[in-house]
């Protein structure tokens, strides 16, 4: 029998600790889990709140500008799917998310479900047995823009993270998730 310290998620713990320290506030366990999980966030919200729904604010194909091209590692001008959604419980918005998905890496089924809308990306991957892994890139606090202020009806600071979902060694999706800093403090 042997023993060794596990440091697999050291970087993620450090990221959370750094944000807490800089901000001068401790986050709740649920907030920390939502910011660091390398699985589907929908699965977590779902068991916490009961039935949740997805509201699609925008979904379209566009040519990637330089910044977006870098996020998903494609050439500038390549077509990507842009999606802007809110996960909510009844009328309460829980998490806002945007995603960029290179069209060249989507098979027809995934594309159809993206366009059909209102299906979370985690669920789309599960429906088609897409094997993947997630790399959390950044965890941070940001000020809300007017859109977020309106959606969440608050001007408080937002907790955010961005990550990529990798399939067949290529970035299939870049996703950013955002929620107000007072969300998930009591659940």
């Amino acid at each position, binding site marked *: *029998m*042997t*023993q*060794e*310290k*596990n*440091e*697999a*998620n*050291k970087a*993620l*713990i450090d990221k*959370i600790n750094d944000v807490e320290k800089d901000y001068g506030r401790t986050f709740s*366990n*649920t907030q*920390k*889990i939502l910011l*660091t*999980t*390398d*699985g*589907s966030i*929908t*699965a*977590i919200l*779902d*068991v*916490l709140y*009961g*039935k*949740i*729904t*997805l*509201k*699609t*604010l*925008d*979904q*379209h194909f566009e040519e990637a500008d330089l910044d977006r091209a870098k996020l998903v590692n494609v050439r500038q001008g390549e077509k990507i799917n842009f999606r802007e959604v809110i996960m909510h419980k009844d009328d309460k918005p829980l998490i806002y998310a945007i995603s960029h998905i290179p069209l060249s890496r989507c098979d027809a089924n995934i594309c159809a479900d993206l366009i059909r*809308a*209102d*299906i*979370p990306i*985690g*669920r789309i*991957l*599960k429906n088609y*047995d*897409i*094997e*993947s*892994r*997630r790399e959390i890139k950044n965890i941070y606090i940001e000020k809300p823009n007017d859109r977020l202020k309106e959606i969440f009806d608050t001007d408080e600071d937002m907790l955010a993270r961005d990550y990529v979902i*990798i*399939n*067949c*060694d290529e970035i299939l999706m870049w996703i950013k998730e955002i929620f107000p800093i007072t969300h998930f403090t009591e*659940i």
Partner: protein
Amino acid sequence: MNTRGEPIPNIVREKIKELEEENDVKLSTIQKILCAIEGPVVTILDVLYGDVSLFVLDQHIEKANELVAEKLEIEEGDEVDLREVILHKHGRPLIYGISFIPKDRCSNTIIEKLLKEDKTTGRIMLEHKIETTTIVNNITIEEPRAKLQNLFHENGDLLIREYTVIHNKKPVIWSKEIYPLTYFRE
């Protein structure tokens, strides 16, 4: 565009609801999350407790019995790596895990790491950038066997999650995570 979908079906949520009704218990937020997550459980424990440690109770290659063969979709008698571990924080047990990994579906490097190094399977998959899907097969509450009573120093009921990790369209891990129902209540 501004559309709103139907409530999203979720098997884990339904299993939890059934479990709560049948056993007249309410799972805590963290217990529900531990049931639902698709990534490694160690990620959650690290975030909650600082980083946690792994203690390997047993690890060896053995021949798959009928049940293990069925779960891993292999032939009875095929070789599997059996791992029995405890995740703990400073000696306080958090979660007991038992997993079966078909030897023929792992590279030699991974088998070596499983056998010689005390890393969680989650960490090994992370290091090797292995792409997977996870299927939660079952969530149950059971009375503890003597061995687990001794490990946890508790004789109350245990919460058990059974799941399969799929890679290259085939099961590569069949695992159970077990802890007392009184854990992760805060």
